[in-house]
């Protein structure tokens, strides 16, 4: 639990930015408990609150076992490598930005599709 708290205090400045787009590389994770899972969920929730997202990359077998055990694996987008996870953000336009563009665009002008 202590480690989870220190992890949270480390990542908090990143989460509290506007529309945080975070990738956690879990390849070196050797042990995780329920407090660690709660920390990941907290980060995801906070990122979503700010219209951002948190994605996981390259989870180690140990992390995968605990993510599946706690049914949290299905809540996260999980990628094989950090590069892939980062690339997935480039095609991502948050809904709020789309709504803002739709509101700002004059009538008759079609919304540009995010590539």
């Amino acid at each position, binding site marked *: 639990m202590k480690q989870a708290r220190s992890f949270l205090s480390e990542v908090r400045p990143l989460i509290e930015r506007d529309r945080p787009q975070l990738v956690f590389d879990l390849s070196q994770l050797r042990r995780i408990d329920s407090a660690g899972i709660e920390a990941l969920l907290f980060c995801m929730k906070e990122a979503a609150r700010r219209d951002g997202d948190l994605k996981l990359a390259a989870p180690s077998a140990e992390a995968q076992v605990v993510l599946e*055990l706690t049914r949290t694996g299905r809540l996260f987008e999980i990628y094989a490598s950090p590069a892939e996870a980062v690339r997935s953000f480039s095609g991502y336009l948050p809904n709020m930005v789309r709504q803002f563009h739709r509101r700002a665009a004059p009538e008759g002008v079609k919304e540009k599709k995010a590539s």
Partner: protein
Amino acid sequence: MSGVCALVLAGGHAECERFAGLPLALFDVLGRSVLMRTLDRLRASGVRQVAALSDAEPLPPPPTAAGCRFSVAPRDCFWSEAWQQFRQLSRQAESVFVIRLGAWAEVNYAAMAKQHARLGGAMLRAYSRRGEALDVLVVSSDGRSEAAALLRGELRDERITAAPHRSSGYVNRLDTPASLRLLTLDALAGEAEIAPMGSEMRPGVWVGRGARIHRGARVIAPAFIGAGCTVHRGVVVTRGSALEHHSEVDCGSVIDNSTLLPYSRIGAGLDVEQAVAGMRVMHSSRLNTTVEIDDPRLVGSTAEPLPRRAMNLLTGIFALLPEALWELVAGAHGQSLPAREAKAKATIGDPALTPLESQADSCGEMAATRRYGNE
């Protein structure tokens, strides 16, 4: 089978044959350990005098049977202790079975002893249907030098020649936790001669003495719930799962195609799938990984002393406290929650980009959205 004794060895070999530091043969399969089941088979074949030797303390209750002497030897002197045990047994009988677990092999011991008596050689080794050598041998009491060489070579010295005995029975090599799981499935399917220790409450569902199953739990056949187990509300036990004695599954968890070891405890709302779990260790057969989990909220033990369990319960309650209170106690950032929210809004700046409250609050809603699309 007069004049035949047996030396049954559990352990003494590779790390892969162990789980949580114990040889797999010491773990229960449908209510009785492989070691005890082997002793039962020997007794049924007429072997009255058995010495069992393990390199680790077994789980309680200790293996006890009439005419069986059980002892534990450290791993570094396991084979020398085995040799001492053999010498003692060979004074009392004409021939001695030397069996290492190792594999669960349904060898016909009576037929093997008969063949050994007929052939009259120093040694007879059992082979599986596929021709694999099994660690099941009959050794003549007067062939002590061969026996010494055999035990010195940990039963695997290929220079020692033994007459073959072909066995057509079921064999499971029990060389990984996954094979322990496979043995359970084969036993439930009736392929292995392993009878579940309990009464069949419904077709394919065996329940041991003193097991408590909440009426809101679902047990789907084939399944085994061992003696003294507790299954709480909303639990699903399915696809050939086995809960060994005195294990406990907390509310809403799913045990799917898995084995829970004796005295293990699975926390609430978890998914144990294709796994062997217990003693703070979990082996996932699907990922072929063994993970140590030192968290009683996930995989714990019912054999823990009461003060420690009470402490774990308090920790669990503490973790359920509201986030704001938690942060107040932890003193994180030294800011109240409203102040932090105000700061976040100030950072966002443009009111048009403020996140919608309805989108923000629920992780559950977000999960539901994720499952049907990526937006």
